[in-house]
């Protein structure tokens, strides 16, 4: 059996995290924490401290600063849900364990909602959320980064990160998603909206035609084609070890992922 391949931006980031069994809504996948070399996804990061930097600009800055104001720690980090708790990745990300409650929810419940008559039974028991420690790289650091090839010419920017589930074994339950490659698109473009995946999701015709044309010149980069120092997030741009002409075209995804 071939290991499962997914696109981090398209199929994991910004999806709803729900709890196994009860279906309770936990959070969004606001970012992904990376570990190891070659890097693999070690945890889901959630909350304003993960979302803010991705939103950027004034709103993103505000999200981060306001949250920092209310957190007691010196250098607060976002909430973290380790990847070994993930049961299923589909239209939602289903996690096991006892996901902790964010502080805002608890504060509003204790000070506002629970004081109004008829708010219902006891809320869930409080558990201290697990926070990330230190500054592990995040997958959003790769997204949007400029890509240059072995000769120094600009190839484009990173639109998405391909993950392959054949990384190290996590807690003896499942293999981690290892970074397998990058989807690189021309610099002056935006989101691919999932139209890079070939036969699946190819309609409506007009949208596909516009996007295909706009993104002509996009390429697939294998992680083995990425320069070792950029692969460790040490350089401001992603440097490749091969010239741009050796890269596979994006249309290769069509043949690799047949429908069904």
């Amino acid at each position, binding site marked *: 059996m071939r290991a499962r391949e997914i696109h981090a931006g398209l199929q994991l980031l*910004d999806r709803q995290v729900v709890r196994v069994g009860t279906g309770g*809504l936990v959070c969004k996948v606001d970012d992904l924490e990376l570990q190891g070399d070659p890097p693999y996804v070690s945890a889901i990061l959630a909350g304003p401290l993960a*979302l803010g930097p991705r939103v950027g600009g004034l709103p993103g800055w505000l999200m981060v600063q306001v949250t920092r104001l209310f957190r007691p720690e010196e250098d607060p980090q976002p909430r973290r849900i380790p990847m070994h708790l993930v049961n299923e990745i*589909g239209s939602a990300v289903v996690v096991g364990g006892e996901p902790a409650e964010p502080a805002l929810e608890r504060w509003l419940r204790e000070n506002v909602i629970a004081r109004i008559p008829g708010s*219902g039974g006891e809320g869930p028991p409080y558990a201290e959320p697990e926070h990330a420690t230190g500054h592990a790289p995040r997958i959003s650091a790769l997204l949007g980064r400029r890509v240059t090839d072995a000769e120094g010419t600009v190839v484009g920017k990173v639109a998405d990160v391909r993950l392959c589930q054949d990384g190290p074994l996590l807690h003896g339950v499942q293999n981690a998603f290892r970074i397998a490659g990058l989807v690189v698109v021309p610099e002056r473009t935006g989101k691919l*909206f*999932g139209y890079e995946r070939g036969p699946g*999701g190819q309609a409506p015709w007009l949208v596909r035609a516009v996007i295909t044309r706009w993104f002509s010149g996009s390429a697939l980069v294998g992680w083995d084609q990425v320069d070792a120092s950029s692969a460790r997030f040490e350089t401001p741009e992603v440097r490749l070890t091969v010239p741009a002409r050796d890269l596979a075209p994006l249309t290769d995804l069509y043949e690799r992922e047949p429908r069904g």
Partner: protein
Amino acid sequence: MKRLFAVTLGILTAFGGFVDIGDLVANGLVGARFGMSLAWTVVVGVIGICLFAEMSGRIAAVSGRPVFDLVRERLGPKAGLVNLAASLFVNLLTLAAEIGGASLALELATGVNYLLWVPAVAFVAWLVMWRVKFETMERVFGLAGLALVVFVVALWQLGPDWGELGRQLTSPPQDEGAPTYWYYAIALLGGAMTPYEVFFFSSGGVEEKWRPRDLVTARANVFVGFPLGGLMSISIAACAATVFLPFDAQVDALGEIVLPVGLGLGQIGMALVIFGVFAATFGATLETALSSGYTLSQYFGWQWGKFVRPRSAARFHAVLLVAVVLATALILTTIDPIMVTEYSLVFSAAALPLTYFPVLLIANDPDYMGDRVNGRFTNALGTFYMILLSLITVAALPLMIATKAGQ
């Protein structure tokens, strides 16, 4: 038998819940000024809302994901945040307008100034959202809104010159400029296709735990209930066209919009129409307030919904509370509720593509939908509407400025 009953009940609920303050005001106003010459936009709007409500309902039933989940997932956090800000702004205006509308209906019934009714309406609306079960809430106000059928009966009683109404369909009045005509076309479309309707419809699907087998019910609601609601909208315009157009009378108060029913059916008609207006606007107050909570919670991934106790969805209920308070404060500034409605219609029309584009994309994504992706016909129609809605986005605000908001 039970199934048939459920389907019928659903259709009636969708029918009665279709009309809100936006439809009432836009159709009354347009009928009085332009006769039936803009009736076609209601048809375009109803087809559009059917199309996108069906898609979002299907997505909710198959994948369990409501519309704003899709917005953030497909547009990303930045564009999603822009959409969130725009939707919340429009939603708040609409919520204020609905509270105002319900209070105006109470003023018509009692003679007590509507401003005194505003806090009471807002409080009761909040209480209903706090305590009443989702299904009961939707049913009661949807069915009560059916009282607005009196517009159809009144039109028939007024005995208009049907030939004249038919002639108006294709010929706008000469004394109105083209920009004003198109401005009101956009307002009518905004009334029929308001984004909160799909936020509410799809989140409601999740609240009621729809599964793929419930698709029959969902489709019946959309394809039968909504067009019937559209017919009701057109009859409001036709009533106004019959009574006001011959005298060139301007309509700018709720009392004038319901007046034709009084002329056609007397006091009983008047009582019914006021009851209907109250039920429709009060029901829509709940829908818009809940939609604010749905959009914000679904963007940030918070627990939302009335299917859990308020204590388990503290942030969601706090948003509802704040939204109701803000909208009440806005109406209490004595700003004209009818004017707020007009503005909210045009702003909603401008914000439509932001919401409907991700719905169209996800309805085609086999990752979500399996083999229930859109067919060719739905896609052709969906593409046509995306182009139309993008044109409206570009045209809405310039037209608003050029016509001084339709004057």
